[in-house]
């Protein structure tokens, strides 16, 4: 089973994933159409800034056990058995924000959605683009990401790749390729800017 893997060190903070996510969760399914819709579709991936102003793509990890699911008062949060995706039943949700208090990543938001009860504010989070996946598409955030910060792969494969990267970087004499050319420089620049005292 493939999963979206986040590589924060590769994020350039372009926020394209947010636009793509909002569009993918709109009624029309397109960015242009989404702009004119009410309720205005919103992203379920949240690009914030890290400690050194670097980009940080933040999205639901579909934890198991999922703290949001355990904390949900009405029992509206459940796990889709086949994909392991943690989903919200908008009809059952009571907008109590218990899940916001439980989520250690802070990735749940509250607003109306076009495919939920009209005008009702509900908890909204990443659904792994299950509707797109059913059509053979990869999640929208991954599709749009050009820097490799978001990939869609089997977790064991991702873990192996990661181990290889670390191994390469620590073995003496090895030439360590930067995660992606240019980003290391950009990250170093941001880090330096943040660390140099202002004024």
């Amino acid at each position, binding site marked *: 089973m493939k999963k979206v893997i986040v590589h924060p060190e590769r994020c350039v903070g372009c926020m394209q994933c947010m636009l793509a996510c909002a569009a993918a969760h709109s009624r029309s399914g397109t960015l242009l159409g989404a702009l004119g819709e009410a309720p205005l579709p919103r992203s379920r991936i949240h690009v*914030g800034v890290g400690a050194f102003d*670097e980009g*940080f793509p933040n999205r639901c990890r579909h934890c198991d056990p999922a703290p949001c699911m355990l904390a949900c008062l*009405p029992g509206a949060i459940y796990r889709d058995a086949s994909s392991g995706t943690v989903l919200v039943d908008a009809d059952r949700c009571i*907008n109590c924000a218990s899940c*916001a*208090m439980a989520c*250690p990543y802070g990735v749940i938001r509250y607003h109306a959605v076009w495919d939920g009860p009209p005008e009702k504010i509900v908890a909204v989070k990443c659904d792994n683009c299950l509707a797109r996946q059913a059509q053979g598409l990869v999640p929208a955030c991954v599709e749009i990401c050009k820097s490799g910060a978001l990939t869609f792969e089997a977790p064991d494969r991702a873990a192996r790749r990661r181990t290889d990267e670390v191994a390469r970087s620590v073995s003496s004499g090895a030439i360590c390729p930067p995660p992606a050319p240019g980003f290391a420089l950009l990250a170093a620049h941001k880090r330096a800017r943040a660390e140099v005292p202002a004024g």
Partner: protein
Amino acid sequence: MQYVIIGNGIAGVSAAEAIRRIDPDGPITMIGDETGPPYCRPMISMVLEGRIGPERLPVRGRDFYDRLGIMPVLGRRATAIDVDRRQVCIGERRCAYDRLLIAAGADPRPIRAEASNLGNIFFMRRREDVHGIHHALDAGVRRALVLGGGLVGFKAAYGLIQQGIPTTMLIGSAYPLSMQVDARAGAMIREALVARGLDVRVNLEVRAFDGNGAVRQAHLSDGSHLDCDLVVVGKGVLPARSFIPAERIAVDLGVVVDDHMQTCVPGVFAAGDVAQFVDIARQTPWVNAIWPEAVNTGRIAGFNMAGRPVACPGTLSRNVIRIFDLDVMTAGLVNPPEDGTCQILQAEDHRRRTYRKLVLRGGRLVGMAMVGRIEQGGVLTALIGSRTAVRGNPERLLDAHFNAGRLVS
């Protein structure tokens, strides 16, 4: 392995589900004096408010007991525990156990006012209580009186004013929810309630009630009296421990448990509102009578009962409240002792009506309160719960653009 669970609230339910993940066959008997499928207790206040109907309360299906192969004994109370014979008494009947869970929850704290047995004086703990309040409202209520400004008193008052009932709230402290929030957030909550017509009176108690069958008047501690035809008592809760043999099973405020939710008697466990463990932020014995901890401790108890050792680092007080356009979230030590051991950081934005307070002790976050922009409050709550040392300048956690990325890099 034979399991008996006393209480079919969320702690008992979570324990039964955890047991079944490990032991699919061991017989489970569940004794609960409330009948019907398990329901969400906090949501009864939304039924009072009229925001949802009572049919929305169940959190598990009608088939819950069947599906998990549980033998339900509903509408009955466990009356005693025979520790030596490993039996639970239900009146004359006895029920043998190898593993017992006490998940009896809590009962409303009674009040010491004369004639408090008059009609239309209610607690708000059970489905039936709200049913009774609705019944009284249907018959016509001119003024309601809410005693106590804790979570239940607050929710009762909120529900009543949302229904347009003129309501007076008597509280012992300067603002409602004084156990849950700090003075600043409390003042904001009070302002919001008063703006919608709630009459809040502080440092007052009821000495006696008056009425012919049903309550008509309350006599207050300052000698004055107040006309009221509905009273909701929300003076906190006490662990439901009356049937527990305190000479055998250690009981303090609640039933004392270790980090595996086991009492001092091997094989006997406790979880939820009835249990007393250690508060993570305070690092002292504590009863955290809240829903998420009832789920958490119930689950952990269930795993341990079925033979999978799982330890609990402690429980954490926390709450999130949404009233009108005000969102409030708090966790841990919100009102720290003024002994110089804690560092307090605060930020307030009057225009946006946001407020944030952090309490740090020994390089760790031990408490927080936030008003507005609470979506990422879980990150702070998790920091408190995991007792992670805060690296770098903690002031950045006050920033409105704060997110999980600020912690990991």
